[in-house]
């Protein structure tokens, strides 16, 4: 299977600051990959590098086996919806469909028109007067109707109300199921990621902290609670992500591929949100002390 996204040592520098550093990824095709991380972590930079909007300062990235924006054929295989879903405010919805038709040889006009009527958008309405949700749906329609193999979305639902968000994801998932798309999208809302993503990438402070299939990640991370213990006495293959201790009790979040055999620990599964928060709250590579730990329910 081809890699949908393959990055090796990818880095992007702006003036003196590195927005992205040492990124190495190999996301297989046919997945919906979620990119999560705090503001300013470099998510938009990574997405724009993948979409060919930026060129790398260091390292390489390929999408579906080719350099992004390498030529018209490669551009046709990748759909991109930027943050805040820009559209031409003075052009009508129908004009935007014409744009898609004229600029994309693989344009599926039938699909586009069907989606527009399903969304109850008025073709003669200027795009600038659409609501946020409608604009996002228009941008998604334009990206889907060119029949790409890969779709890249930068916080597509961040500024949408819950209903618009749900409708957007419904349309997106239906297209993934119907067209066999690979998707890379970034979001703040872990709940949404949990629904739609089967691959996760956590990006913090311009570096990738963890990446992998969601099912593998959930299977390899555990909550341990038990009597107060010195973390140094844990098995060597167990990597501690977060720890908190009272005088009587220890609570740890660990990552390990081996089963937990120590009977003094109560082992519970970790939710995706907890996992993401644990990686987001780590500073450097060591475990987090209680003062740094965000409150996790």
């Amino acid at each position, binding site marked *: 299977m081809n890699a949908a996204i393959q990055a090796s040592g990818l880095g992007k520098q702006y003036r003196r600051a590195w927005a992205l550093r040492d990124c190495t990824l190999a996301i297989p095709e046919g997945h*919906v990959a979620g990119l999560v991380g705090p503001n300013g972590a470099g998510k938009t930079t990574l997405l724009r590098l993948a979409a060919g909007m930026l060129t790398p300062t260091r390292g390489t990235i390929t999408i579906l086996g080719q350099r992004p924006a390498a030529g018209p054929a490669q551009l046709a295989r990748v759909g991109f919806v930027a943050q805040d879903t820009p559209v031409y405010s003075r052009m009508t919805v129908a004009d935007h469909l014409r744009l898609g038709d004229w600029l994309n040889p693989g344009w599926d006009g039938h699909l586009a028109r069907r989606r527009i009527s399903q969304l109850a958008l008025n073709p003669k309405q200027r795009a600038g007067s659409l609501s946020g949700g409608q604009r996002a749906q228009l941008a998604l329609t334009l990206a889907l109707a060119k029949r790409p193999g890969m779709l890249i979305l930068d916080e597509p639902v961040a500024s949408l109300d819950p209903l618009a968000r749900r409708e957007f994801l419904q349309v997106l998932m239906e297209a993934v*199921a119907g067209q066999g798309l690979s998707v890379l999208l970034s979001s703040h809302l872990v*709940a949404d990621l949990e629904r*739609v993503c089967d691959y996760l990438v956590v990006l913090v402070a311009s570096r990738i902290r963890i990446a992998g299939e969601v099912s593998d990640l959930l299977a390899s991370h555990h909550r341990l609670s038990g009597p107060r213990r010195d973390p140094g006495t844990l098995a060597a293959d167990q990597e501690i992500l977060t720890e908190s201790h009272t005088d009587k009790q220890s609570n740890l979040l660990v990552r390990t591929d081996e089963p937990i055999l120590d009977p003094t620990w109560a082992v519970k599964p970790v939710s995706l949100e907890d996992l993401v928060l644990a990686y987001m709250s780590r500073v450097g590579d060591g475990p987090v002390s209680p003062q740094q730990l965000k409150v996790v329910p």
Partner: protein
Amino acid sequence: MVEFQLDETSGVATYLQLVQQVHQALRMGMLEPGDRLPTAQQVVAQLAINPNTVHKAYRELEREGLVRARPGLGTFVTRAPTGPDPATQARFLAAMTDWLRSARAAGLGPDDIEAIYRTAFRTCFAEGAA
């Protein structure tokens, strides 16, 4: 055609919820052998979940021998799960409904009823653990 629901707070994996809902539909007689399950596209268009989750659920059902995927045509129910037939199900459903009604009439609230149920459930399945 069966329509799936998703309970995000239950802590049960999504694909398992789908599997369970198919089991339930089969038990209740809402799905019968020969019926077609909704396509992955239809399910995700309604639930906004990852299509691979639906595929995983259907593969599990196929592994259990309850459904069979026919390429190009869909996924079809092959047999009902082994277990009590709909008549038995209906009998116990009626008995349960009567019990609940009399409990309510006796003044028990939902939490009381649930506590009674859970205690009885634990006792019963602990002693007859199979």
